[in-house]
């Protein structure tokens, strides 16, 4: 792997040569390592810290056909003050909505640190033309989205048309705006790999590298519409990819597992994985996010349990 990354993407053949030249993933080894790290026991003060960190990393998400402006406003209020009865609970990192609701969310979050993320590019399937995808991204950014979650064209990826995927990501990145070298100043781009459709761990590694070379700021596991969504081994592979990419280029890319993370226990397993794989530098909302909705209430209940010593009940927290 001595080719400079800038030259890798000159043709589909060179991209293919690079991505297929990446070392293969030992499936059994990855599963076993993720499972082993999942057994770590995090208790008392460490757990308290982990819960607060996880709350700060949550991208509170609603991506339903039935989303209304009222629901989005309620979710924004929850992202700012997750537990209205306890001001010591930190805010969530961002809210994630469909492009047409970005304006509503931006208005509801004005003056707070909570960012607005929007899915774009024909989410969740990604089956549309590049023009439509770019236009949708522009609309979301124009409405005020600070982060864009795009989906890759899995069909093209699986067919081996890596250059098409690369160019789409690059075009969407350009549409995010920003004048700096890596698009600084523009919207943050999260690239959804939809690992549940990529079939193999080798493909997850390849897609991760492809997204990073093409200019993604974050790589995200899933849309949440496909099962399996985020899993520990897949996140492990993506964390390894961002670690290796940072060693090679000095650029730190974020990781966001999304979908299926519902309990505090799960969230803490992911934090352990981050710490042990990419390192403590990634234990920040700038470089690691959890895409979730019901997770937040479970984090709050665990937090209250640790504070009061009694098990909390869902009756005392806001409905999702």
């Amino acid at each position, binding site marked *: 792997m001595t080719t400079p990354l800038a030259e890798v993407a000159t043709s589909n053949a060179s991209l293919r040569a690079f991505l297929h030249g990446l070392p293969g993933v030992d499936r059994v080894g990855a599963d076993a390592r993720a499972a082993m790290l999942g057994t770590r026991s995090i208790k008392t003060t460490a757990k308290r810290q982990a819960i607060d960190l996880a709350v700060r990393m949550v991208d509170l998400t609603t991506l339903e056909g039935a989303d209304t402006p009222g629901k989005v406003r309620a979710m924004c209020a929850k992202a700012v003050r997750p537990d209205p009865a306890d001001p010591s609970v930190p805010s969530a990192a961002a809210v994630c909505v469909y492009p047409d609701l970005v304006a509503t969310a931006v208005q509801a979050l004005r003056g707070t640190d909570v960012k607005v993320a929007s899915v774009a590019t024909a989410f969740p399937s990604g089956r549309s033309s590049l023009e439509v995808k770019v236009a949708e991204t522009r609309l979301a950014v124009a409405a005020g989205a600070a982060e864009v979650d795009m989906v890759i064209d899995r069909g093209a990826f699986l067919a081996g048309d890596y250059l098409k995927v690369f160019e789409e990501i690059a075009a969407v990145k350009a549409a995010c705006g920003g004048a700096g070298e890596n698009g600084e100043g523009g919207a943050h781009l999260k690239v959804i790999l939809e690992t549940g459709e990529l079939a193999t761990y080798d493909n997850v590694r390849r897609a991760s590298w492809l997204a990073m070379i093409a200019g993604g700021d974050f790589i995200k596991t899933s849309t949440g519409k496909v099962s399996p969504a985020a899993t520990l081994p897949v996140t492990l592979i993506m964390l390894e990819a961002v670690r290796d990419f940072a060693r090679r280029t000095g650029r730190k890319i974020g990781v966001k597992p999304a979908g299926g993370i519902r309990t505090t226990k799960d969230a803490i397993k992911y934090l352990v994985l981050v710490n042990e794989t990419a390192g403590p530098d990634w234990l920040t909302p700038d470089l690691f996010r959890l895409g979730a909705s019901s997770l937040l209430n479970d984090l709050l209940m665990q937090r209250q349990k640790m504070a009061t010593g*009694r098990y909390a*009940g869902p*009756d005392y927290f806001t409905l999702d």
Partner: protein
Amino acid sequence: MSERLAVRKTYKLFVGGAFPRSESGRSYVVTSAKGDFLANAARASRKDARDAVAAARKAFPGWSGATAYNRGQILYRVAEMLEGRRAQFVAEVVQADGVAAKKAGELVDAAVDRLVWYAGWSDKIGAVLGSANPVAGPYFNLSSPEPTGVVAVLAPPAAPLLGLVSVIAPVIVTGNTCVVVASERAPLPAITLAEVLATSDLPGGVVNVLTGFQAEIAPWLAGHMDVNAIDLTGAGPELAVTCEELAAENLKRVLRPPTAPIDWMAEPGIERMAAFLETKTVWHPIGT
């Protein structure tokens, strides 16, 4: 021919319709009334209690939403299944309680009859505790009893089968779901009863049975914010006070322990059902 190996039963917990071991991996020795070793029973931890409450909460919408007639049918079905295992229960009651076989037979029969008795109440309790209220205005004003929610039950230490059935049946027949802490001294009939419940069309999670030390588990249930009521029938005086204090935090309904020993053979009355019902009153305009 070699002698056949004994196939002994592992007594586990009953949570969400399944029979898990304790999360803690612990167990404790259960002896007969005479002091002979009977089995190792699972010793539930606070996390097992938490899981059981979650299972009971999950089962609540379905069970409370079932028709009263359906709940009665299922309770009757439990009675049928219990009757079918009569010999096994007689043997367990003899061991656990140290009573003679004849007396044990009467206790098991009484437990079956108790289930049938409560099954009959399922669609009648509303008529007894509900009412059409006279009000000064053009309204129908109707009160009807509704289930409280998740009920924690501390089963009586004596009468391991009849007492247990007599505290579970009135809680679930009205649509509540429950987490029962079985008699600490004699938990084995409770787990065998769980096997009956698991094969009686009773949805998983409606009844969850924990075995172990009451003083260890009960305070967690009493303090749990997602438990709506607690039946302290089996609690000693000190434990009852502790639990009642903890239960105050989220205003749980509390059924205090009896002041005099209960005669479980006597007909129970509707107090135990009424203790875990909430009255809902609706006003409806008559019109014109």
